[in-house]
């Protein structure tokens, strides 16, 4: 059984209240499958009455028709005012007085039919199929079928907007993270199952906790690649909540995930193995828990001449693009002292002769410098320094520098 609404108002929303299979047939027409509603409402006329009642409640002004196939329901809704109920098998008889213009045939075809004196459904339905096929082709046959109320096509339902959200209202506030983990697991597993049934995965997990004090605690986890690994999600959430605990007991949990297509990639036979993205994310979260936020990642050099200017990227270690740098010649490395070590430097003829700092002490045996550098003088964060490379009597090579704040040891060559 199919129903059709033709009129004004939010027809789609009304149809969605009664059926998940709704077709937007036209700007003022929706058709929907009402099979099975008889179990709830009873006879077809009761189903029609329920729909009409609800339409009045929500302010929808539309003709309603119920028929055994969607096309007959559409024709009836467009052709008759109010509620029409077409008995199964009587579609042709019911639709007989309607004008052929309702079927929106091609203008040339309509003109031909007019010249033949065919203006109503029953006149079209009475024509022999063989003659129509010879004179009007398949389009004519389709019109005859619709006029007889024998249309049998599949509906094109509106794709339902996918919302992957879930929530739990708690009877008692939860204070500890351990019992909270069980609730989180329930939410995650439910959402992951719903995603899996639609062959989807997620790359973002949002958690909103309503607190007993009335406030809210929101967390958002982003994954480098879409995944459905519920254990990894749970562990990541646990680690995140341990690092950022809610300020008060929790009374309500809401979780939402971003549905995306799962990543399908096959690595090459000769491509070196890289860490599995979700597993790596979990490992990094575990490391971050004890070394601190912002201390794990990929270093990225900044576009500046300021010494030791870099930032930590959160990206994984397998995302680098190949570079064509000649790495065959060893390069002398500099080990940086962080934080920088303030030094006391004795000068002789304007050049360092003795250096003393935390863990560094000795007579300067050889040196090169000063190398004067400066930058960012056009900003408030200007810098300038004089650098020396020195060989100390303790056997090591250092880079020291002098700036307005004093002398410092930047690091050792190694």
């Amino acid at each position: 059984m199919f129903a059709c609404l033709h009129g004004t108002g939010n027809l789609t929303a009304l149809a969605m209240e009664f059926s998940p299979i709704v077709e937007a047939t036209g700007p003022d027409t929706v058709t929907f499958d009402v099979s099975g509603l008889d179990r709830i409402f009873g006879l077809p006329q009761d189903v029609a009455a329920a729909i009409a009642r609800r339409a009045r409640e929500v302010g929808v002004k539309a003709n309603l028709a119920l028929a055994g196939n969607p096309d007959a329901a559409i024709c009836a809704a467009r052709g008759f005012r109010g509620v029409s109920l077409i008995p199964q098998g009587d579609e042709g008889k019911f639709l007989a007085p309607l004008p052929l213009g309702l079927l929106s045939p091609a203008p040339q075809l309509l003109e031909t039919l007019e010249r033949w004196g065919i203006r109503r459904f029953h006149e079209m339905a009475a024509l022999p199929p063989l003659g129509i096929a010879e004179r009007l082709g398949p389009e004519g046959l389709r019109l005859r079928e619709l006029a007889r109320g024998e249309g049998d096509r599949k509906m094109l339902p509106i794709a339902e907007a996918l919302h992957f959200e879930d929530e739990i209202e708690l009877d008692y506030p939860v204070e500890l993270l351990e019992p909270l983990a069980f609730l989180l697991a329930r939410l995650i597993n439910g959402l992951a199952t719903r995603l899996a049934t639609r062959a989807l995965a997620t790359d973002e997990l949002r958690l909103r906790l309503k607190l007993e004090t009335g406030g809210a605690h929101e967390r958002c986890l982003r994954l480098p690649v879409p995944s459905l690994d519920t254990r990894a999600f749970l562990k990541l959430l646990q680690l995140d909540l341990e690092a950022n605990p809610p300020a008060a007991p929790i009374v309500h949990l809401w979780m939402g995930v971003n549905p995306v297509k799962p990543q399908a990639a096959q690595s090459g036979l000769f491509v070196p193995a890289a860490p599995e993205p979700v597993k790596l994310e979990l490992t990094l979260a575990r490391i971050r828990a004890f070394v601190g936020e912002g201390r794990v990642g990929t270093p990225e050099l900044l576009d500046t001449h300021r010494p030791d200017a870099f930032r930590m990227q959160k990206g994984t270690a397998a995302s680098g693009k190949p570079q064509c740098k000649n790495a065959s010649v060893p390069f002398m490395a500099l080990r940086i002292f962080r934080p920088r070590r303030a030094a006391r430097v004795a000068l002789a003829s304007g050049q360092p002769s003795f250096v003393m700092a935390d863990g560094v002490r000795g007579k300067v045996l050889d040196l090169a410098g000063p190398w004067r550098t400066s930058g960012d003088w056009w900003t408030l964060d200007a810098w300038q320094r004089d650098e020396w490379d020195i060989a100390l009597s303790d056997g090591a090579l250092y880079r020291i520098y002098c700036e307005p704040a004093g002398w410092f040891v930047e690091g050792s060559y190694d």
Partner: protein
Amino acid sequence: MGAAVLLKQFESMLGEPFDWQSRPEPERAPSGIAEIDSAIGGLPRGCLTEIVGPASSGRTSLLLGLLAAATARQEACALVDAEDAFSPHSAAEAGVQLGRLLWVRCGHSAEHALKAADLLIQGGGFGLVVMDLGDTPPATARRISLASWFRLRRAVEHTPAMLVSLARQSNARTCASLVIECGRKAATWSGARSVSRLLRSIEVRAQSTHRRKQCSPVFTARAI
């Protein structure tokens, strides 16, 4: 039938005595420094390698060479930096592809470094994991128990990863499959003093034992 009899029968079938005890030689990966590769044949995979030496002995230059070679092979690398001493600029100059390097800054904690290295090895997928204890005081590094080193060795065993520890002295003892001891042979300066003097390079002697033979290749790490 005794095991000895079975062994004799088996050896007679093979036609030669069979060495049941020795383990297969691990696969070796190039270190990125030709002199070291020709002397010791690269670094063993699935093993713990120690690079030791005092400050300015060239051990970090050797390490950057390793990282550059590994990243050039498109391998993911991890550097666990106990004393936060890594210089990304130096590494980039040495040819390390920073995009393939995961840097863990442990903020002066050898214990955190050990834990992070363990997690990274257990996670898998890395071609090279480096634990840099180069500036950690020797007394602190020595406090790392042999059991911890053994655990790391076991974790990296049967994986394609190379685990490298950089320190002032050897700490892992028997757990390390290879120990490379670096020492600075000479520093090369150019130009007249106070005019245009430059620190050009350092010559590094890397002593090691390969196939029960002492070898000490020398390589030059250039500054410019």
